[in-house]
């Protein structure tokens, strides 16, 4: 009986949704206006400038800069690297995203412990430097299209694992990434939710991060974005640079193939 009632209810709901449409539209316009007013003068620029200086500064026990770091396009090449990450790196034998690759470079070149940085709370010490570095490196690929390599078997494996992680429902609320990001044209509160199972468009979803978060006044890379997604999903705590975060990066990045990166963007 419940099922029949529900079907009837659905029909009534469809009728009532037209009534609320006008109001929804004006809210959406208001939000668009707000975002347009913020776009001119994105504080992410402050982080980019800091990141560029950090990239070139000799630091750490080995007193070296990061300029010899190979982000996938050869040592020292920054432009275009971001839109091809995560990818497989032969020297570590791992698929790495931007943050985990920076941990490797920072450790091998500068002697700064990757494990210690990974264990540092977001926004403090070396993690604050990571925020600036990801802003700088992503900005260097601004306007370029995502084109993650899938030639290596490890890259293809991470895509498959990322897909399964994306749909993995668990926790007290039974949420998966897909609960919010598995369909187009849905919102949470007033925020549009990109469908991350495909390319949601230029500068949307995966192509909008790293971003300056207005709510906290901080710059978030994908690691931090995913960390807070999992917090809101009521999951346990994902390790910084853990396989699940990189696999999700591969899944979303491959799906976003052809999308233009606007990172670092500005977000609620």
């Amino acid at each position, binding site marked *: 009986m419940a099922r029949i009632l529900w079907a009837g209810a659905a029909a009534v709901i469809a009728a009532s949704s037209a009534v609320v449409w006008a109001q929804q539209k004006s809210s959406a316009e208001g939000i668009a206006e707000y975002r347009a007013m913020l776009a001119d003068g994105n504080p992410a620029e402050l982080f980019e400038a800091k990141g560029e200086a950090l990239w070139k500064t000799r630091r750490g026990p080995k007193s070296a800069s990061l300029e010899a770091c190979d982000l996938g396009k050869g040592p020292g090449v920054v432009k275009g690297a971001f839109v091809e990450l995560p990818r497989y790196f032969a020297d570590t034998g791992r698929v790495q995203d931007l943050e985990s690759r920076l941990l490797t470079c920072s450790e091998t070149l500068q002697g700064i412990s990757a494990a210690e940085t990974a264990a540092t709370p977001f926004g403090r010490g070396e993690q604050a430097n990571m925020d600036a570095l990801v802003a700088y490196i992503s900005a260097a690929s601004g306007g370029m299209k995502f084109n993650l390599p899938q030639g290596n078997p490890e890259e293809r494996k991470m895509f498959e694992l990322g897909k399964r992680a994306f749909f993995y429902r668990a926790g007290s609320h039974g949420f998966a990434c897909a609960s919010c990001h598995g369909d187009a044209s849905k919102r*949470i509160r007033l925020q549009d939710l990109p469908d991350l199972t495909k390319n949601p468009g230029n500068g949307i979803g995966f192509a909008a991060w790293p971003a300056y978060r207005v709510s906290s006044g901080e710059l978030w890379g994908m690691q931090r974005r995913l960390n807070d997604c999992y917090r809101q999903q009521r999951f346990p705590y994902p390790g910084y640079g853990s396989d699940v975060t990189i696999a999700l990066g591969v899944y979303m990045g491959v799906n976003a193939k052809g999308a233009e990166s606007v990172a670092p963007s500005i977000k609620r």
Partner: protein
Amino acid sequence: MKQQHPLLFAAVALIVSIAGCAAPAPAIDYDAATQQMMKSSFRDQGIATVDRLQQDEADAACSKAQGAPLPEAQRVAIEAANMKTVRMPSDGQFLGDWKVGEQLAQNGRGMTWTDASTATSSNGGNCYNCHQISKAEISYGTIGPSLYQYGKLRGVTDPASPAARPIVEYTWAKLWNAKATNACSDMPRFGHNKLLDEAQLKNLMALLLDPKSPVNQ
């Protein structure tokens, strides 16, 4: 256009798959590898412990389906099993205070690793994240259907009347365990997973069904 025989394709496919078996790289069991990855990637933090990664039958089946509908028999079995978990209110009263319900519906907190306690009193209903409810709140989500005029549209004028009973019980079951009526529902199982207690659920019931609630104006 030259027509090709489907059997030819089958034969080629067979040869390829045999060759595949002979190759050194064995086929990967992605589902097992996923389980292993989840286990190695997460750790306890505050109240959010790794045992939360364990899936029950519904979560496991819906994860595996990746958004596709479940086979009919499986869907029916999952819904029946979840329906059995629904506990109707112990005192037979279904409705509480819609004003408290509205606050609960607005509240998106609870059960994250930054929350101090798993007690139901520290949890919100998260309702506006996904649903339109009261018309006054313009910041609402659209993951779930609009619940504006929920009771009114269903003809509920007296929630205590026998006529309203089926809707009242259906709504209670939906809040208690949404998978009782929709196996792969995205809605949290508030009663079943001890996210909200009976009194809190009654307040949400009142928000949806009390004729005096702003939802039904």
